[in-house]
């Protein structure tokens, strides 16, 4: 499909914060993207002109922030609301290979929703969550730069060479990856679903502060089996431009995530 035809929805409810810079990132690459309030997908109190369906878009992004104040657990309320109003559409959307991206709070929502780790292709949203993102080991909010090693490719990183180290900043209080048992981790490794891991300057899998939250296996971002649903705690939209990380070149490390998904959509749809 053509660049101009691509339409991206960046989901928002009260408390999401990073939708504007995420929309700007896509727009700068020539696609039309808009911030869409969850109510616009289902509520009849919304004016006709503003009502939307998930299939008006080719990519869904759940941005960073504190959806519903992060009460109960980060992302819990938004994922419960998503599950109750959009579950059927979302399952079709994922099964047909459309890309879904969850950044920081978005990753927490995808995990609570059961869309990640997403082992079962024909049932993209599992009944029960199969992993959790819980309070950081430092029991504090962490806003710091973090270095990530690219372990495996997915729809959102296929233009990035394997093994490359990039800098995306992190800003979260509940980003520690926890699995119910080791078997889940082994399957993720086996299926090559681990996309990014926290590393130090020499590329080694170091502890705090390089691993800002104490995640198992230094996991920073994973994708589902098909590779079209991707969730990560660091913020690529905050290093889209070079000047955002003190570099002279035009694009920063984060731009590759947005370029890859556009390239995927142009080739496959």
């Amino acid at each position, binding site marked *: 499909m053509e660049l101009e035809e691509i339409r991206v929805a960046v989901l928002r409810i009260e408390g999401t914060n990073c939708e504007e810079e995420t929309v700007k990132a896509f727009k700068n690459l020539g696609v039309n993207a808009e911030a869409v309030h969850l109510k616009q997908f289902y509520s009849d109190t919304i004016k006709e002109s503003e009502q939307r369906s998930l299939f008006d878009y080719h990519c869904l992004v759940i941005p960073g*922030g504190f959806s519903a104040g992060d009460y109960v657990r980060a992302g819990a309320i938004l994922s419960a609301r998503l599950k109750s109003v959009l579950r059927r559409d979302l399952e079709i959307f994922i099964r047909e290979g459309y890309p879904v991206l969850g950044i920081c709070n978005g990753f927490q929502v995808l995990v609570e929703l059961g869309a990640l780790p997403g082992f079962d292709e024909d049932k993209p949203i599992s009944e029960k969550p199969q992993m959790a993102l819980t309070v950081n080991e430092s029991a504090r909010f962490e806003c710091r730069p973090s270095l990530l090693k690219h372990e495996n490719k997915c729809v959102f990183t296929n233009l990035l060479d394997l093994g490359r180290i990039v800098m995306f900043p992190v800003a979260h209080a509940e980003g520690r990856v926890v699995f119910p048992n080791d078997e889940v981790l082994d399957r993720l490794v086996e299926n090559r679903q681990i996309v990014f891991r926290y590393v130090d300057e020499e590329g080694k899998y170091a502890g705090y502060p390089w691993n800002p939250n104490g995640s198992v296996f230094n996991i920073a971002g994973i994708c589902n089996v098909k590779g079209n649903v991707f969730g990560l705690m660091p913020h690529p939209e905050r290093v889209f431009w070079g000047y955002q990380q003190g570099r002279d070149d035009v694009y920063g490390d984060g731009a590759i995530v947005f370029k890859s998904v556009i390239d995927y959509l142009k080739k496959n749809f």
Partner: protein
Amino acid sequence: DEELIRISEEMGLALNLEEMKKIKVYFAKKGRNPTDIELQSIAQAWSEHCCYKSSKCYLREFLFGIERDYVISAIKEDAGVVEFDENYAYVVALESHNHPSAIEPYGGAATGIGGILRDVLCMGAQPIALVDPLFFGNLDVKELPKGVKHPLYLLYGVVAGIRDYGNRVGIPTVGGMVFFDESYITNCLVNVGCVGIVRKDRIVHSRVGNVGDIFVLVGGATGRDGIHGVTFASKELSEKSEEERGAVQLGNPIMKEPLIHACLEVVEKGLITGMKDLGGGGLSCVISEMSYASNCGAEVYLDKVHLKEEGMAPWEIYISESQERMMLTVRPEHVDDVLDVFKKWDVPAVVVGKAIEEKVVRVYWRGKKIYELDLDFLLGAVEYCRPYRVRRVERIDETSKPSDFKSVLIKMLEHPNVASKEWIVRQYDHEVRACTILKPLQGRINRETHGDCAVLKPTDSWRGLAITTDVNPWMTKIDPFWGTASSFDEMIRNLIAVNSIPHSFADCLNFGNPEKPERMGDFVQCVRALGWMARGFGLPCVSGNVSFYNETPYGCVAPTPTLMGIGIVEDVRRVVSSNFKGKGEIVLVGETLKEFGGSLFCKVTGQKSTVVPKTSPKRLKKYANAMLQAFKEFKVYSCHDLAEGGLAIALAEMCIGNCGCRVDLSCLKGEDY
């Protein structure tokens, strides 16, 4: 007369005898007795917090009226509005939230952030950055007076409040400072500042648009929380302050976040003619101030206000300071569109009254008129040029060379006022909105050091805004005049250090009880110094706040004129960070004199000196221009200003950021200090 005083105490009006007499005369002429709602409303309007009655005459004399063509609106409104470039203006506000934070640190600090965000929002601006200058008692305090919380408890509570509110509302906290001194043991200071950006053709003023406009109250429901918050801030804290729980309001960031979006949407669509936030004094102050500023009056129907609790008396509704509320004035034909926008964002909005021709405010409750006051009387307010006595600073200088430099340096680096505040900065999301170019912590990853300013890039152009906050209470405690002048000097140097052009500043003046002449003397000295430096340098003061009564029977705060400086960065790609880059010569700019008054060296070694560093605006201007010229002509790798701890600490901070350095001091003339 005793009866008047009794009434003032009983109703918590915090008004003195003279003010109560003024009210009696007014109502005698009216031929009727005042209702309780009228008395409460007058008490709010005449409180120190709302009308600056003890400070206005000195502020006007020394500080106001520094004109610069690029200033659009200064001092008169909730926030200063200054030109940023051809089509954008930036908005600045700095305020204090001291009294509630001493009682409930978490809620006090959070509502402080909520209030300052609304001051910027009501000019129609999108908030883009927050700063939090904080002042606490010394951490190693042994015993505390009864009912006073430990500085560590207050620090954790305040930082948690700012973190949870600022992060949730999605505005980056990019700067601030933390200062520890025993004078803050019983009175911690929580100052908060905010900067916003607005298109020039979208600026909204905090006054009624025109007669016939409809008042629309938007945001949270009204409850009993925060009643007398303003009068509570206008008297000394005492042990029993703890019972005045009502005076502490609690913020709700998840109600505030959509409120910001909704307000900006109605501004964007040009649907409103005026907007003002409900801060101190609640509905009473906002209605009267908006009408008074447009020379018109207002009719208000209290039954329309949506309430949080049942059974509230009309006066409680009228002066309640519940959080997250804004007042809009809207042309009648736009009211429905405005209500629609707020419904989409799940933010309650309701029509509560309309603007009328006659300069009077009438309030109706269940169809009955229960309040009618002339605005000139209500807001003509009372003003004092309080007597003051300036204390003489006699010169003492008992400083001498320390025997062991190394141990002194270690002690200076360990001191809480110099030690790294990374554990606080890392808890604030200082990068949300992706416009933070120069971060508060600079240098190699996970080895960062403190920078002088944060720099933001608010629009699509390469033009940026540098923000810093500064004051040195050790110096102002010894010599209020030269201490304030040096703090202004340090603020300018912070702005220069990142290659930004000093453009404007806001102040928040925290002092003790104005009824005591020597406290008033300190205040006048500080304001005089500020006026002298700002006028001499040519830097306009665009917004400010005065917080008196920061005093308890146990002690009074050091004179604390907190300053927030704003600089213009012509091209964000040429900002300069403070850590060494491993190459280039080290150049020290400026003279080094033996001025140890209020210095870290004296604090650490216990030696005594009252020679506070002196400065002059002309010389400062010359240095500033020379530095800015140097940035243009030479490749400057890094730059840092010398503050607490002088050259030693400045060099240490620059090394911590990246790598070491070798320095030969023999070229410095004069004694070796």
